């Protein structure tokens, strides 16, 4: 007997995802990573700004207790790498949230209302799309100082454009479907139709896009921190650590290798997971761009 009980899209997607070994491995790794950056700093005897005067710029060793070595100020690199991970991931999630909020609102309104407003809103997106945002963000950081709130907003503001386009496209195809028509005939106001009927149906595409936006945001934040425009000392992020490591390349290889590899591994995981989710949630496009 085959099971004929209804299955949701999410159930199907989860089953498909579970069969994708690379994506599942990535999911596990990310889970471990998040747990590690949250819990491990509490268990280690050092803080991210504490100097160990007996171990200035020492190589990694189990004996000294500095498993990742120390930097030129004698700070434990393991703790700093974990703290860098906290900051990088925090920025990634918050900035992605910002871009999600703006993108969904903008795209859903443009798509649902249509007509002149749609034309106008999408033209704005076109124009913004052509701007070299990275340079404007750098300009912004230079002018208004380096606070973490500005990083969230600035990075989030770059990434909502793609989101808006994707959401608008989906909304256009959704808004003429029967259930939306039924809601409209029943006198439900447009704002409520968008919230209750359009947006929930967009979530599949949005989830895939979010997973692929997070690594992008991590790169942008690291890029800014690498240039010295991100978070401020003694607080750190992966980009800032890679920058410090790049300057001490010839003397302290561990300063670049550990944060660099961890950063790259995280980006790998998000990309694999994103590809897996796309295959699971969007069966039309399996060609893999």
């Amino acid at each position, binding site marked *: 007997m085959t099971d004929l009980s209804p299955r949701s899209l999410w159930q199907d997607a989860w089953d498909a995802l579970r069969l994708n070994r690379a994506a599942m491995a990535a999911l596990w790794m990310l889970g471990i990573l998040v747990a590690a950056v949250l819990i491990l700093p509490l268990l280690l005897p050092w803080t991210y700004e504490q100097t160990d005067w007996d171990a200035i710029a020492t190589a990694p060793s189990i004996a000294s207790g500095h498993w990742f070595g120390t930097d030129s100020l004698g700070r434990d690199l393991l703790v700093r790498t974990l703290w860098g991970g906290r900051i990088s991931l925090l920025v990634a999630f918050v900035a992605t949230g910002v871009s999600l909020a703006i993108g969904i609102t903008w795209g859903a309104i443009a798509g649902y209302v249509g007509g002149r407003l749609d034309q106008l809103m999408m033209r704005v997106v076109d*124009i913004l799309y052509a701007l070299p945002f990275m340079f404007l963000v750098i*300009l912004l950081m*230079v*002018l208004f100082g380096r606070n973490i709130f500005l990083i969230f907003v600035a990075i989030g503001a770059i990434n909502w454009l793609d989101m808006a386009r994707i959401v608008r496209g989906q909304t256009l195809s959704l808004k003429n479907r029967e259930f939306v028509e039924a809601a409209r005939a029943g006198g439900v106001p447009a704002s409520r139709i968008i919230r209750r009927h359009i947006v929930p149906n967009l979530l599949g595409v949005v989830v895939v896009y979010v997973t692929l936006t997070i690594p992008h945001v991590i790169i942008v934040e690291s890029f800014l921190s690498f240039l010295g425009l991100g978070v401020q000392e003694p607080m750190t992020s992966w980009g800032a650590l890679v920058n410090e*490591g790049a300057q001490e390349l010839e003397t302290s290889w561990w300063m670049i290798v550990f944060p*660099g590899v961890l950063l790259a591994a995280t980006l790998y995981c998000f990309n694999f997971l994103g590809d897996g989710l796309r295959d699971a949630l969007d069966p039309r496009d399996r060609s*893999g*761009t």
Partner: protein
Amino acid sequence: MLRFTLQRLLTGIPTLLVLIALAFFLIRAAPGGPFDTERQLAPEIEAAIRKAYHLDEPLPQQFARYLGGLVRGDFGPSFQYREYTVTELIVAGLPVSMTVGGLAMLVAVLVGVAAGTTAALRQNRMADHAVMAAAMTGISVPSFVMAPLLILLLAVGLRWLPAGGYGDGHWRYLLLPVLTLALPQIAYIARLTRASMIEVLRSPYIRTARAQGLALRTIVLRHALKPTLLPVMSYLGPATAALLTGSVVIEQIFGLPGIGRFFVNGALNRDYTLVMGVVVFYGVLIVVFNFLVDVVYGLLDPRIRHRT
């Protein structure tokens, strides 16, 4: 075609204006002026400086003056390097940035298309998996991580290549910067080419060509490659933007005397005019390049011209 070109031009011009206006007004809105020094200047000296740099005029007039200067290729004086104008600094860095960026673009397109085509022709076999795994690495490892790691391995460890410097453009000095700058773009172009080629190879006219007994090589080179390259072509605009952005860190890491280095130093020293000059210059480059790509795309693919 003329109509299409004009239409594209009409999107490009507002983009440029928005860019310049954004940069200009952001700078004026920033706290602290470029001449804030530790020492209190005499009011008359300060007034004289403000007058010399036209900072005493109303904002719209300053903006008009800046725009007028831009049209003549004048980005104003640098606040940090007092004896130079921003234009002189950009011109000084341009050959280096152009050499590295241009070579990276060339490498990215050639290697990316070749790798993507190879993968598509051997879909789901070893070569395909190898190319796709390499592409995933290119996408996942940012150039500012890849570059120091490669320097550590090839320059510090094995001593095969110099760790930095420009060396008057000798290939040993260019190899690593060009490679690290190109890698992410190679990866994107390879993935795009693969997906596009797989789709093209499934289309009926390719089946016809096969049925006629044409060699696979001829089919790929003569019939499949051109339509495959259309999505790659439209990616060249974003690729330029990514290369210019990436060149900033690459120049910093390898100590190349290009525009990006001035930009970073200007950013850290709050040299407003220099930073803005580079933002506007690169912005104009990107917008112009996007426009050219669009026009060429329109020439290659008549469907695009007639849709809008």
